[in-house]
């Protein structure tokens, strides 16, 4: 047996060890450092499970093929334009919209298996559990977008909006994903176990589909169109289409006319509602 190289804190008879003094600066330092450790954990997951990325991207890529090529010829974009050009920003939006399931799944897993409790019993910054999760999910989402964008380029999609507008469009997608992190964390702590987490698909699927992702809401029945129009995913996708210079199929409703504004407002609203809910759920673990 080896001799532990770690000095036991508080074991010395003299004054308290330095690490027991928690200045604000030190706490901030650890909040950042601990978050980074959790981010690295998330990234290691990506590296160790490349098949997961394939699964995650498989759905939008199959959707591109199905909708772009199988149904594509029968699809029309109101106001004209190539359907595949119209579809691709929708795919980006759908991937972001469904991404909250990944967040929820990891949270469910950690909570059900006691990993969250282990974190909470450690002297790490409690906020890092949440911010680290958010950080690694955003990096993951950026990688998803990169792979999807390359797929899109292969099937002939182009952005004609110029570099700043193109980057702005991708930033909008990440902003939506950022807001949904809190939904994912909140749902992840509501759901009792990993099996039940699978049922979140029933929420994610309509959330992503009843939107302007595949068709313009104008082509839907009125009641459905109203839901689709006000779906946050629609605002992000519509604003991105505009920024990319892709066919937009813009209706004359206020929410469509102000898609860019709403693509920023919606994520702020979602964050404002679900961030406190997620934090409160987290705190309730100690009840």
């Amino acid at each position, binding site marked *: *047996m*080896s001799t*532990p*190289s*770690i000095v*036991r*804190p*508080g*074991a010395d*008879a003299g004054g308290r060890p330095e*690490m*027991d003094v*928690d200045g604000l600066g030190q706490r901030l330092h*650890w909040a950042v*450092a*601990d978050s980074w*450790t*959790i981010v*690295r*954990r998330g990234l*290691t*997951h990506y590296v*160790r*499970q490349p098949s997961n990325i394939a699964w995650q991207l498989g759905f939008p890529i199959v959707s591109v093929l199905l909708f772009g090529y199988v149904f594509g010829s029968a699809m029309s974009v109101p106001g004209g334009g190539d359907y595949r050009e119209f579809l691709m920003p929708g795919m980006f939006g759908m991937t972001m919209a469904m991404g909250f399931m990944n967040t929820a799944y990891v949270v469910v897993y950690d909570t*059900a*298996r*006691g*990993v969250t*409790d*282990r*974190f*909470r*019993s*450690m*002297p*790490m910054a409690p906020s*890092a559990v949440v911010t680290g999760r958010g950080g690694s999910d955003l990096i993951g989402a950026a990688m998803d977008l990169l792979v999807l964008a390359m797929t899109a380029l292969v099937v002939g999609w182009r952005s004609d909006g110029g570099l700043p507008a193109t980057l702005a469009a991708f930033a909008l997608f990440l902003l939506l994903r950022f807001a949904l992190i809190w939904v994912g964390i909140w749902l992840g702590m509501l759901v009792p176990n990993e099996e039940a987490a699978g049922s979140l698909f029933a929420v994610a699927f309509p959330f992503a589909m009843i939107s302007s992702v595949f068709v313009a809401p104008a082509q839907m029945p009125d009641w459905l169109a109203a839901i689709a129009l006000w779906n946050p995913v629609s605002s992000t996708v519509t604003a991105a289409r505009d920024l990319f210079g892709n066919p937009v199929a813009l209706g004359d409703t206020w929410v469509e006319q102000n898609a860019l504004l709403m693509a920023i407002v919606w994520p702020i609203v979602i964050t404002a509602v679900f961030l406190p809910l997620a934090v409160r759920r987290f705190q309730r*673990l*100690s*009840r």
Partner: protein
Amino acid sequence: MTLTEPAIVAEGLRKQYKEKRALDGFDLTVPPGMVYGLLGPNGAGKTTAVRILATLVKLDGGRAEVAGFDVAAKPRQVRRRIGFTGQFAAVDEVLTGRQNLRMFGRLFHLGAKDAVRRADELLEQFDLIDAANKGVKEYSGGMRRRLDLAASMILAPQVLFLDEPTTGLDPRSRNEVWESIRSLVSQGTTVLLTTQYLDEADQLAERIAVIDRGRVIADDSPAGLKNRIGGDRIEVVAYQTADLPAVAKAVSRAASAEPEIDDEGRKVHAEVRDRVAALTEVARSLQDQGLAIEDIGLRRPTLDEVFLTLTGHHAEEEEGVVA
């Protein structure tokens, strides 16, 4: 903290969940360097007590100090001095064993080099070197538990909480985990261990607190506790219910208390003092009478029998109260 100061002090802990009073005046004092067993059935409050002491759950009343710090007022100071191992092996299944320990090391605020070195030390100590670079998914239950223990030991904690560390493990894995726990204690760590098995408490603990309905109802050395609850049991299983009275008579000669007859199980059991002598005597007596029996053996008192003796009621199985 000096050597004589208790590692854990709990005074009058109370915790109420909606319908259920999980802790109701829970008192405990654990001297440093000792393995203390918390023995009780499901729902007795063991897990709640450990979770409060490990700063995971807030208490409703009472006071608790761990490693010299109040758990409610100074949770961070407590967390730097404890290790916690819950009912599941709380490790990341996707990462390798080594990656897990390095990650937890960093989160315990070790420097990068220290985290790497400590991970290697622990992998060696817990006999996981060969599996160090394998994903935890490929680990057996016992290996996961050992990795889990290793993660609790990163800072060489003063106090280690183990909540049912061997529940769900096969006998071999259980022995592995017991070995690991013993070696930790030899390094001076104070261990508070919860278990539903008298056998486990007996194997590991120097002192056992029996907990029932949220309070400690007995607090003694394993030998003292066994004295109070009586010794081992002899158990004879007959082929026919009709044989039971004759079997009981044979058993009563060697037993130190009146034998109990269990018609349903076709069993007679009784407390015995001298294990081997009693077994021999009963077997011989049955043979002399020409009574054929299905089985005969010695066994430890079950948790239920412990409870019956100490509380006068059976161990209650209540599920789902300790979240």
